[in-house]
């Protein structure tokens, strides 16, 4: 009596599988091109980070902490974090993770900013996108890994694909909210003086929405970082892989070291991107 009656429900899983196989057979070429572009960007960024001498990167991070975040103390703490990561023997892995994050954020912004702007200017688009964004954010992130694997195989590209899907909602949302909450009179003023839509966007909406957009970028970056770690499960080299190995071998200490390195990276990335939203 108390059990839910057995019945033939919606064959949703079947539909999704069918859709996937349709996409794979008909749009295989498209995914190859997308994969090629993503791969080249991330490899390019990786090359920069891996080829720069370690002390240059540490100095740059320190400088960013001092000049952007505010205090010299912050810069010194950042440098200590980086040195600690290196001392654990994770320098190369950390640089790979960082490259993946930066590349993912780059693509997220490329997709997210225009979508956020479109959403702010078009109510219908907002109605359609909102539940979609909710879904993207609340769906367990592992779920993205499966189709990503099917589209792009193992490696960096599927990890990034999953990361972008997971990390793009905040920047879309906050761009939308930022533009929609722009001071009404500033907007009216621009229109009253005969501004075109483009002038309104670049002179008023984007500059006034900037703090909100920057918070969105900060959140997107943090989500990208957490997802890149999970992305290691499908073969993206990085700090996440160390965690995964530690779990498999039940090596608590190794897992803690790798986890702490991720935390250090996260703090540095968060403070630096957050500082952008605070500046005038």
């Amino acid at each position, binding site marked *: 009596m108390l059990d839910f009656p057995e019945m033939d429900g919606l064959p949703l899983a079947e539909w999704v599988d069918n859709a996937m196989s349709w996409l794979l057979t008909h749009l295989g070429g498209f995914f190859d091109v997308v994969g090629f572009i993503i791969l080249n960007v991330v490899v390019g960024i990786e090359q920069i980070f891996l080829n720069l001498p370690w002390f240059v990167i540490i100095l740059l991070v320190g400088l960013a902490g001092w000049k952007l975040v505010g205090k010299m103390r912050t810069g010194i703490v950042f440098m200590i974090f980086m040195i600690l990561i290196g001392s654990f023997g994770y320098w190369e892995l950390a640089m790979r993770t960082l490259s993946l994050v930066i590349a993912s954020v780059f693509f997220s912004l490329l997709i997210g900013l225009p979508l956020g702007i479109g959403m702010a200017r078009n109510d219908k688009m907002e109605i359609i996108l909102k539940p979609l964004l909710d879904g993207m954010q609340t769906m367990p992130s592992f779920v993205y890994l499966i189709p990503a694997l099917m589209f792009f195989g193992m490696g960096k590209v599927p990890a990034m694909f999953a990361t972008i899907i997971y990390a793009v909602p905040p920047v879309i949302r906050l761009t939308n909210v930022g533009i929609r909450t722009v001071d009404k009179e500033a907007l009216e003023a621009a229109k*009253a003086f005969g501004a075109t839509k483009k002038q309104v966007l670049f*002179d008023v909406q984007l500059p006034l929405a900037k703090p909100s957009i920057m918070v969105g970028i900060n959140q997107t970056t943090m989500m990208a970082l957490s997802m890149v770690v999970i992305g290691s499960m499908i073969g993206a080299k990085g700090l996440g892989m160390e965690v995964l190995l530690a779990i498999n071998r039940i090596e608590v200490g190794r897992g803690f070291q790798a986890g702490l390195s991720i935390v250090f990276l996260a703090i540095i990335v968060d403070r630096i991107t957050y500082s952008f939203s605070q500046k005038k």
Partner: protein
Amino acid sequence: MEISEAKLGNGFLGTLPDSEETPQIVIRDLWKIFGRDPKRILKGPFKNMKKEIIQKKTGCILGMRNINLEIKKGEFYILMGLSGSGKSTMIRNLIRLVNPTSGSIMINGRDITKLNNEQLIQFRRDTFGMVFQHYGLLPHMTVLDNAAYGLKIKGLPKDERYARAMPILETVGLRGWEDYYPGSLSGGMQQRVGLARALANDPEILLMDEPFSGLDPLIRRQMQDELVELQDKLKKTIIFVTHDLHEALKLGDRIAIMRDGEVVQIGSPEDIVTNPADDYVKEFVRDASPSKVLTAGSIMENVKVLLYAWEGPKTALTHLNANNRKSAFVLNKFHQLLGVTKMETLLKLISSVDKPPVIPESAIRKITTVSPDTILEDLFPIVSENPYPIPVVDSDNRFLGVVTTDQIFESISVSEGEENA
């Protein structure tokens, strides 16, 4: 049907004389209804119902109902009403920040409700400047860039923008503040930037949406005075929205009072205060002191005895005696006021040795005069200091009449009596 209407319209326009008297802005049968499918309200039986009933039965909100206005070139026109009366909607219609549901708005002979998007943008650039209640400045731009923003939109190069905006910043008293950001300025100064931005375009028509409502009273009064001064120089057509009666009376050439989206009365400040059209307006002007509206010109009287400078002292004396007066004003042949002379002075002249043929200048004492525009409030200190009637003269010093303490008090008590009735 449509064709004949169009023909009629053209014919009407063609025969209008192109004189100063043609109103610059003509608004006919203007309606604005907010909500879903607003046109159905205009067709159906709801058209003549009260605002609240329309809202209850259809969910639509009546913004403006059948507005008809004419605004002359160079006029300082006030739209006054409580919040929700439709005054802000009205002013936004003129520039189509809000689009009317039906009706026409002719500006300089062009129906702006029929402009397409590009024409509208061009029209806004060419014709209007607008000032907002909360300033509507761009916080990421300097004061100078804000003032020059209208010119930037027009696509003017930077040098020219700045060259044109600088003198205007100076006019509004912001010299030296060019490089500051609006956020670091006080409210009054921010509104000066707003005003400078509106004026930098050198617009024909200035729209001001409660520009001084957010300012504290002292600054507000100062800004009002400066605006009056500026308008004397610029002679723009100004449409000014306010809910403050004193502001309306002080600034306006004409005032349109709005309630629930309708215009209830249009008139000069004096009309509004002395002849309120209905109870709503009466309630509005209840606090308005007539002393702030009535002017010397409206209450002045003729004088029975006037002396002329070419008359001999003897004739003058006869005049005074015949009318039982002790003193009188003296005019020259252009009817300009020279001053006042007393019976004793004239008597002395007659008994003196040289016996002048006309009243000499030394016998005429210069006195305080007022212009016909002086409001009663400003007359109080003058009449209290001067025991004789105060002469009213025009800008060429020509004598128009006099005001006396009695007249002033009488005019105030009469209009108050009407109000209480």
